[in-house]
């Protein structure tokens, strides 16, 4: 691009004494953000329109007669901006005091405490002592329907929730009623948010504790939660999320920003779908033997016995049943194991499918997909074929009666009878929970859920996305990539992968679709598989 062309596209300004060059049309707030300067704001949210009404993001712009709202004031060449000038800080102090005039200050019982922007800003630069002597306004609590509870007294009237429902969900179910200090957020009629499929996001974007999740209500304090970057396992969209855990339990899922996948949002189906990660009835130790002969054994013995059986099984015909909930690394390990044991048939997987999709109209990239599992595309790329019906059952008739080797990874075989694998020469069941259909399994191996291990999925966009370990697997359960990698590695004489990254690297070498990918480079944002080939 020629030099003069570049000039037209960017502007250079000075913020708090530091020069910064930003694209034309960048707001002062974003330009300051680029320098690591956090201009306090409530009504502004990067995923929504900016009404410039909270008035706390006002900054001093030299030459302007009054303070300017930084969220809607566009950066201009040569502008000199002060976010910390006496006028700006004095104004912020004043606005914060206005917020506190009617705020209940019920932080000790407020779910938002610890991650509340009012708390943060007042702590940073509010008045030490309030001057309010008047009785506070009381709105009380309102059930907005769905998972959302409204505490009117805590509301700062930023209207992010109203704008989210209007602009992003395109399902305007909230509004401001009344005016002045009597103004309050409310629903239209009794239905409220009931049945809205993206309304949970308004809890995330509420800067204070006005909108809270009924599911999370009083469950944990924000500062006790560990945050782990992850990928939502609810459907093949693979929204980037954070697992919020405490006491080795997932307490809630929160969307993690990724403009390529989910923006700032996630759907309510995915958000609510986490209790299974906290199941207490997990497989906790490996076992060998069929039916009444089954006994617990330690991993070393189990793997040695299984290694021996696999060596003997050569040529008997192998059937692999994978799962779209398993990581790429686990599925690649399964495929490798099958190959070493002499598999010629493609492995299969079963996936529940919803009757329809549920898009987010204001951010059309995000759709709750039909496939209600995170790694359908990864399983496909790794050579597994879909079988069975949309309810995730059926399609295993041939496998059930197979007389050679059967290895099941992550499929709970809920629809299968106790005679599943009765004729198999070797039946290995790797699962998180036990199954009646695993009665004939020669080996029952406890594995970790995705929340308990590192790994990657491929989403519907063909995007490889990594997730991290947020909790400990119960008992002796181990990541499937480790178990399968150890077995396949032993059969090949190349040892056990020491980490998910090593398992990933083995997969990259074997499967052309992943070639060129680098574990670290994939990072937390993920990468499109085609991009690796470009």
């Amino acid at each position, binding site marked *: 691009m020629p030099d003069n062309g570049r000039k037209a596209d960017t502007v250079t300004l000075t913020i708090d004494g530091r020069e910064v060059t930003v694209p034309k049309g960048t707001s002062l707030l974003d330009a300051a953000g680029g320098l690591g300067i956090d201009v306090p704001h409530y009504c502004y949210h990067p995923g929504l329109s900016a*009404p*410039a*009404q*909270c*008035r*706390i993001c*006002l900054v001093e712009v030299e030459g302007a*007669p*009054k*303070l300017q*709202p930084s969220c*809607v004031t566009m950066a201009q060449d040569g502008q000199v901006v002060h976010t910390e000038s006496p006028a700006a800080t004095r*104004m912020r102090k*004043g*606005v914060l*005091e*206005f*917020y506190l*005039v*009617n705020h209940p200050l019920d932080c000790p019982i407020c779910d938002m405490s610890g991650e509340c922007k009012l708390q943060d800003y007042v702590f940073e630069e509010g008045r030490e002592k309030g*001057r*309010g*002597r*008047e009785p506070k*306004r009381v709105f009380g609590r309102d059930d907005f329907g769905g998972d959302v509870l409204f505490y009117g007294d805590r509301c*700062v*009237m930023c209207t992010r929730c109203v704008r989210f429902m209007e602009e992003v969900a395109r399902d305007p179910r909230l509004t*401001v009623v*009344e*005016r*002045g*200090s*009597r*103004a309050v957020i409310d629903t239209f009629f009794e239905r409220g948010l009931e049945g809205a499929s993206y309304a949970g996001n308004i809890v995330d974007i509420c800067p204070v504790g006005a909108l809270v999740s009924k599911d999370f209500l009083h469950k944990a304090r924000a500062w006790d939660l560990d945050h782990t970057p992850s990928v939502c396992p609810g459907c093949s969209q693979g929204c980037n999320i954070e697992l919020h855990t405490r006491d080795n339990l997932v307490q809630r899922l929160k969307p993690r920003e990724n403009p390529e996948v989910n923006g700032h949002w996630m759907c309510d189906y995915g958000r609510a779908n986490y209790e299974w990660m906290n199941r207490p009835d997990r497989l906790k130790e490996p076992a060998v033997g069929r039916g009444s002969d089954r006994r617990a054994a330690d991993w070393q013995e189990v793997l040695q016995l299984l290694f021996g059986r696999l060596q003997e099984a050569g040529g008997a015909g192998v059937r692999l049943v994978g799962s779209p909930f398993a990581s790429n690394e686990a599925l690649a390990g399964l495929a490798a194991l099958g190959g070493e044991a002499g598999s010629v048939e493609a492995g299969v997987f079963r996936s529940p499918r919803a009757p329809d999709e549920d898009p987010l109209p204001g951010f059309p990239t995000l759709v709750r997909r039909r496939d209600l599992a995170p790694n359908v595309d990864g399983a496909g790329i790794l050579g597994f074929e879909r079988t069975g019906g949309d309810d995730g059952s059926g399609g295993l008739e041939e496998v059930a009666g197979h007389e050679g080797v059967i290895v099941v990874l992550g499929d709970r075989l809920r629809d299968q009878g106790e005679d599943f694998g009765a004729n198999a020469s070797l039946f290995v069941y790797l699962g998180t929970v036990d199954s009646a259909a695993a009665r004939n399994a020669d080996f029952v191996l406890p594995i970790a859920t995705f929340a308990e291990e590192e790994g990657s999925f491929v989403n519907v966009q063909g995007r490889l996305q990594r997730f991290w370990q947020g909790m400990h697997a119960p008992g002796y359960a181990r990541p499937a990539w480790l178990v399968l990698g150890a077995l396949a590695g032993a059969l090949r004489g190349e040892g056990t992968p020491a980490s998910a990254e090593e398992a990933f690297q083995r997969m990259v070498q074997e499967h052309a679709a992943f070639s060129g990918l680098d574990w670290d480079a994939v990072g937390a944002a993920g990468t499109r598989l085609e991009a690796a080939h470009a």
Partner: protein
Amino acid sequence: MAYPYRHEKETRVLSEGFGDPGARTVAGWKNYGGYQGIARALEIGREATIEEVKRSGLRGRGGAGFPTGLKWSFMPKDTRRPHYLLCNADESEPGTFKDREIIRWTPHQLIEGCLVGSYAIGASHCYIYLRGEFFESTRVMARALEEAYEEGLVGKDIMGSGVDIDITLHVGAGAYICGEETGLMNSLEGRRGEPRIKPPFPAAVGAFGMPTTINNVETLAAIPHIARHGGEWYRQWGTDKSPGTKLFCVSGHVNRPGNYEFPLGFPLMELIEDVCGGMRDGNALKAVIPGGSSVPIMSADDCRDCTLCYEGVEAAGSMLGCASVIVMDETADIVKQVRRMAYFYSHESCGQCTPCREGTTWATQILRRIEDGRGTEDDLDTLIEISEQMTGTTICVLSDSLAMPIISSIEKFRDDYLALIRRGERMGAA
């Protein structure tokens, strides 16, 4: 027909037809020279009409005093997109009752002004946004519009000129904030009456997202006269910076309150003492709010040499606003008056901006506490600080409008506040 009060010193341009029910018809208005202004405008063309208005120096009568001709010239010349003229008839400023009178008595004066304005800015549709509580004005205006349509003065091909101008009467639902120009646009579009952020300004993005000019009733009422007689003619009255005549709405403790029309620059004391017949019961003058409730209060001292024009009132420490002169005598309880204003603004705040939403209500609560004798001297500092925080920090100027009377009343009538505070302290109420 004697309009409630008249005075021989008046210069009646806009108010000539006040008190004459005959002026409400097309024929009656034509007796006053009506519909000659639009005829001349159509003759000289758009640009020349804007030039005449510029030459007249007419300043917006809604309160801000922005030059009308200049405002019109901001409209894009390209009229492929619809342009709109909005007539702001949501007269809600406490103490103001001039627009209502123009509409009640001379609806065709306004219709003609709307026609000239629409023609000049290239609008083929004009909306008159009328305050919801103005029942009689609504009736009169609706009837006048109907007649104007029947007479071919409004609608398709007005007066055979080939120009189409429709006028729609839109009745608001009674909110002060809908008199703020962008709040009015939102309300007209069916949204909440909340002021919009500027920029973009209405001339670029206004009603329905289109280039829009919005003028006050009194401004548009002066337009037919300027169009008919020319800008120079209008300048025979008033001062260099404030040309023309203006309606003064005088209310409060005077013997003859009412609407009086004078050239701008008329002395305030002459208006009170002579035109309005002096103070009630011969009481002493205490305070004047010269421009509707949103401007600083003037003490009797401030009034002495004040002339009623934009620059004159500014020199006296206040603003002409919409020239609604509220006069208070020595019996007036300033704290109560300010508290009532504060309550009004807190009730009418749209609630978007934090300083206004919370500040107006908080100030009202403190003022009421002082009024009840439970205030402290610290409260006065708090009030001033709140007021400063409400000035220049919001989207529109509603909270500034409350800040001004609070600050000026504490500055000029601090003793009134202190007396209430001391009395409360004596009674042990604080």
